[in-house]
């Protein structure tokens, strides 16, 4: 019997096919729910000219800040680029080595969910009257001024979860959940870095947050 098996043996194997110029959605808020080991594997792999979507640009040289430090990311779509410890991004941005698309956090999450859900664009009040509205269509619904925001999808999504099974079903840990479920939906190839792999059927069906349909690859963290 040919069983479904989305489990990869190593982080390196899971990211091996990512080519230059790919778009990647990176889960995480601050340091919570970040697929750190996948990001390190992508750094070793060397793909460049990546179009990245991530709520934060990484701190110090950790997370995607490492990819930015090595000029692997050419564009970042992000809500919070300018934190104190995000000096790597700030420097590269000032040097003109990375483009920024600044997006309000809720709009970012919703654009990603839309990308995974067959919604091509939506009207929302967030950003009306701000610099975020520049160049966007504005329209009123029931007297509420809104702007038109477009779906975001990725060639890949890098997800961090707590547990997975070989079907790719996922549960998360606390607020490590954050962007991960929406990004899992919007990645063409979603790769989940997980703390633990369990047997199919072990996860309570009522508590699965990301069903396996949204996940293509699963790798267990080494924790090193």
């Amino acid at each position: 019997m040919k069983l479904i098996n989305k489990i990869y043996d190593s982080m390196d194997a899971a990211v091996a096919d990512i080519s230059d110029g790919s778009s990647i959605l990176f889960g995480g808020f601050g340091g919570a729910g970040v697929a750190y080991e996948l990001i390190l594997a992508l750094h070793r792999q060397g793909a460049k000219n990546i179009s990245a979507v991530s709520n934060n640009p990484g701190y110090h040289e950790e997370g995607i800040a490492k990819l930015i430090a090595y000029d692997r990311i050419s564009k970042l779509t992000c809500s919070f680029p300018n934190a104190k410890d995000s000096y790597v991004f700030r420097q590269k941005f000032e040097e003109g080595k990375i483009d920024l698309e600044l997006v309000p956090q809720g709009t970012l999450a919703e654009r990603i969910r839309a990308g995974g859900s067959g919604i091509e664009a939506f009207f929302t009040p967030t950003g009306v009257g701000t610099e975020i509205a520049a160049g966007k269509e504005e329209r009123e619904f029931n007297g509420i001024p809104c702007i038109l925001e477009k779906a975001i999808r990725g060639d890949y999504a890098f997800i961090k979860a707590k547990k997975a099974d070989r079907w790719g079903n996922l549960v998360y840990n606390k607020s490590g959940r954050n962007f991960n479920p929406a990004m899992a939906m919007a990645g063409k190839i979603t790769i989940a870095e997980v703390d633990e792999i369990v047997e199919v059927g072990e996860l309570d069906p009522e508590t699965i947050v990301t069903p396996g349909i949204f996940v293509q690859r699963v790798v267990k963290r080494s924790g090193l």
Partner: protein
Amino acid sequence: MDKRLLTREQIAKRIANDLQSGDIVNIGIGIPVLVSNYVGPDAEIIYHSEQGVLGMGKKAKPGEEDPDLVNASKEPVTLVPGGSYSHSADSFAMARGKHIDVAILGGMQVSEKGDLANWKVKGVKLGSIGGAMDIANGAKKVFIAMTHTSKNGDIKIVKELDFPVTALRCVNRIYTDMAVIEVQRDGLVLKEIASGFSVEDVQKVTEPKLIIDEDLKEIQV
């Protein structure tokens, strides 16, 4: 050789042969419901059911029914290990967001461009859409299972739909009691034909001009 139209069961069996282990499949009412009976034990197919069940299992046996666990036809079913539940918006995110590998649906009419009509008979005022439009639009592949002509002999594979549209340019393959036809950019390609029938037999009950596959075969069921 006798001309033998496929039975509903044989159409279902023929479709089952085209499913691959790991496919996530949405099954419509009618002939499609029969398909899972013919999936071999060496394939792990995951069934999606629109009301929020991924990994739908067999019908519930007497005594194991739960009124909160039903299929799209409201019959009590089971969940397989690895299955999960979602709310309706997320369940249709699966359908609309191109996450379902194959939707197997019934058809009233299919056009040569792959347009599908399957939700309402022509001229009727009140019809039910349910998930038909979302699923036909959103599945990666749409397989239509239907008789080649209607009960009263009307042609169902047509140049242009005149029944109410379900979705445009969505159908990939048509499995009938007479033929397997693939919708390609340049038209309808006749891939397989039921035992005893000629190309002419099929063409006679198919409005658009069929392209004959160079590797035309008899349907094996």
